[in-house]
């Protein structure tokens, strides 16, 4: 299992995830996002566009390392990893 940490901003749209320890079974980042989509239908389209690419102002980290493959999210994850889904600090 890997643990997924979400920016609190996403809880505004998916309140059912707030306060939960999110653990999913996945071998890649794409697999983890697919599991999140199962828990909270629609969240995948918040994180990625309809081609499965990470949205430009969203960042994913495995531990402290930024995900490298933003196009297909093929970076591998291993049991015990922590995947963080964050938004860039931008806007006004």
């Amino acid at each position, binding site marked *: 299992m890997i643990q997924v940490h979400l920016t609190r901003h*996403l809880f505004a749209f998916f309140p059912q995830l707030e306060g939960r320890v999110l653990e999913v079974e996945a071998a890649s980042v794409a697999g983890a996002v697919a599991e999140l989509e199962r828990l909270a*239908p*629609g969240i995948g*389209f*918040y994180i990625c566009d*309809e081609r499965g690419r990470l949205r430009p*102002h969203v960042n994913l980290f495995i531990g402290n390392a930024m995900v490298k493959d933003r196009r297909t999210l093929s970076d591998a994850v291993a049991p015990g990893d922590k995947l963080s889904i964050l*938004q860039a600090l931008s806007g006004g």
Partner: protein
Amino acid sequence: MTKIWVATRKGTFRVEQQGGSWTATLAGHAGTGVNYVARDPSSGRLWALLGHGHWGAKLSVSDDGGASWRDNAAQVKFPDGARYIGQDMFEDAASDFGVGWRVVTRKATLQKLWTIAFGADGTIWIGTIPGGLFSSRDGGASFELNRALWNHESRGGDLFEGDGTGETKWFGTPASEGGEFAPGIHSIVVDPRDPRRVLIAISTAGVLETRDGGQTWRSRNRGMTMDHSPEPEAEWGHDPHVIDLCSSNPDHVWQQNHAGVFYSTDGAERWRKVSVPDVGVHFGFPVSADDKDGRVAWLVPGRADSQRMAIDGGLFVARTDDGGSTWRQLRKGLPQTGAWDIVYRHALDNRDDLVVFGSTTGNLYLSEDRGETWTTVSHNLPPIYSVRVG
């Protein structure tokens, strides 16, 4: 009771009469960009077109008059294989500007939900950037890209199957939320007599019409002129800012264009320029057609494309009652000094004697006598993108 839906950069507002005065109340999406909010008259459902920035464009719906909202289960998504011809900027030392443009073919992803319209047959139409028209014939349970328009010859042909002609007549608008200069569908008007007849307008391409529910499309730009172009009467390349039609006389169609105000009395078969620059009627974004009399329309003019502000710091609405032959400036109750508002294309609407508009400065003004006198609803809303009565 009449309600007015105001879409702003920071949320959705409902305007209604409370204790004898018109009041704006936050009705949802606090902090989120809302491009357009409208009520489907056949279902009563409210639809909000959101631009989240980080999280992309989303469709939000309310079945309780805006008390609660949820993301629509079906979102607008470009299908796999949808591509379009665009332009990329690159460094070019040989250019006077230091940059050049190259034609590219790229995969389509949703950048902006821009407008929504409802046909009497229950069809829901949505216009997007980059230039995709989507429809739902199941009440919003699913949305489908209109491929006849997407693959239109004016756009370079069918890029699902091959590389098409490699040339597009659809150019761009800076209104996309991704920063790309891509074409956008901002106007969809459905003929109340026949929901298979739909006019759409695109920045930057022009007006197209279908008479068979979207199976075939043809240009509707005859009579249009582009003062800024070496070929002013070209079929394509026009910059409609918005179009609207008279619901009880739908052959009367109005267009506020970058290059002036245009009017058609034959269902957009042919347009006639009705700008009168001497009375400030030429440049602007919105136009709103009267529901009963096709000769009547309202505008909120701005000073030319080089400024895009209220003319000389005095805000006015212009109305014609005679098909654009003459225009009256309606100023009573609107600020006449130090006002530099600009009103976006969807931010003016009318119903019966009610006329209402909002500016990017967050000012919302309302008239109950067809524009003769105005009252202020608010000076303190976020930048206003859309105002719809209904």
